[in-house]
């Protein structure tokens, strides 16, 4: 198996950390993983994206031009990456802040109302975990158990108390993602 994934949105949305948790989950499953972020000032309010690859085989390039899955969390990212999804691939987006919905017919498009749900849950920090839940519902590339292990591995110990909240958010995401 090999999944080439781009996650893109605004800095501060938890794009990079979502990718990191996915990568750690892959590590827990003994997969080959790579996590290549955009870096620099983008991290603090501009657009941010991260390329995550999970594979059973050695990963060649951590930099890609097309993706199996694109997770899109703002309009500039949709404009940039919709065309980069491989035919037959998957695009997941949150409609919050998206003015022009994706239009491609040769890919599977899903929407997830993660931002509003996070606000309803009174926990905006859960946003990226809701999106991750949605992804795992569509493509169960790693088990929930290993995601939680990955979280444990990637979070400093003082934040381990947040893991149950993250689990709840992932499960919520699995419920609310829908095919467009």
């Amino acid at each position: 198996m090999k999944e080439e994934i781009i996650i893109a949105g605004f800095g501060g949305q938890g794009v990079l950390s979502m990718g990191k948790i996915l990568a750690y989950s892959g590590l827990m499953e003994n997969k080959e993983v790579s996590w290549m972020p955009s870096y620099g000032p983008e991290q603090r309010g501009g657009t941010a994206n991260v390329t995550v690859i999970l594979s059973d085989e050695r990963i060649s390039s951590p930099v890609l031009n097309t993706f199996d899955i694109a997770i899109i969390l703002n309009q500039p990212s949709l404009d940039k990456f919709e065309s980069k999804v491989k035919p037959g691939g998957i695009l997941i987006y949150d409609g919050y802040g998206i003015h022009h919905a994706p239009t491609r017919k040769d890919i599977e498009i899903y929407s997830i109302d993660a931002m509003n749900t996070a606000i309803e849950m009174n926990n905006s920090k859960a946003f990226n975990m809701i999106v991750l839940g949605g992804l795992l519902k569509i493509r169960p590339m790693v088990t929930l158990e290993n995601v939680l292990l990955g979280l444990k591995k990637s979070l400093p110990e003082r934040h381990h108390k947040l893991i149950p909240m993250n689990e709840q958010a992932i499960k919520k995401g699995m419920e609310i993602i829908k095919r467009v």
Partner: protein
Amino acid sequence: MAEEIRLMKGNEAIAHAAIRCGADGYFGYPITPQSEILETLMELKPWETTGMVVLQAESEIAAINMVYGGAGCGKAVMTSSSSPGVSLKQEGISYLAGAELPCLIINVMRGGPGLGTIQPSQADYFQTVKGGGHGDYRLITLAPASVQEMADFVGLGFELAFKYNNPAIILADGVIGQMMEKVVLPPFQKRRTEEEIRKNCPWAALGKTADRKRNVITSLELDPAVMEENNIRFQKKYKIIEKEEVRYEEINCEDADYLIVAFGSMARICQKTIEMAQEQGIKIGLLRPITLWPFPSQAIAAYTDKVKGIISVELNAGQMVEDVRLAVNGKVKVEHFGRLGGIVPTPDEVLSAIKEKLM
């Protein structure tokens, strides 16, 4: 027990590896995209465990001179920076080479010239392998292409530096520094004691004991006849390194019709290019120099009769391509492809360039 497989950034791997390799000191100054090296060391507080000194200097210039001070005492010391900061270090690097001091320098390259960009680049190839500072000197240059190699080359860099009493440099870039991959860290090694250093580095300025003459760490020699002798000695050493320490990797090179020469992150991207080419029935091989100096000239020259063309793919306007051309000496077509100023080409862009330039 097998070492644990971890997931970390290339920059973080360097910091962990430094502590585990028994480094005595790290001196650095923050600059993107390599600040995680200093940050990780400060977080890990090795002074409480191995006794390693970690210090944030007031400038890159101060940092490289701290390295000179530590190296002059025979200690295993290192610094890291990114392109503009490494330019500032060039004076110190020249002095280190002139005083024949071992040390490890890390350059996580970003786009230039000037303040440039913080995005990945390989435009410091010339600076690194052709001099950079003043005078006839060479740096042992290691080009990692994975997070694992970032970790491994710390130990290797120190080993080569002390073997030849010469600075070694890890020439990485923003991609390798910032990406996370699986890595197995090197086992813990004890730092050397003062007695061991006095024995292994009898030249070290550690305080003059009655049984020897004073040690003076210097690159100064006003008598040109003696200075020429010094230079001849350096050149002899460089010849030995060129003979003994060339390292490279060949991927899919057997029966390849075309050869890519690429290092570091570009070598990773080109591996994907090769996979894409295979699907189209095009046979491309990759020769990845691991040491940029000494350069694998003979290994590349061996392909002159075997391939229809060679392309040097670099994140710059064409630097390593000059060494590739020197290696094949006009016997086969050598082209260059690169993106500039911090843009990293995608694998398909490289394939298009190969088709356009070589086919």
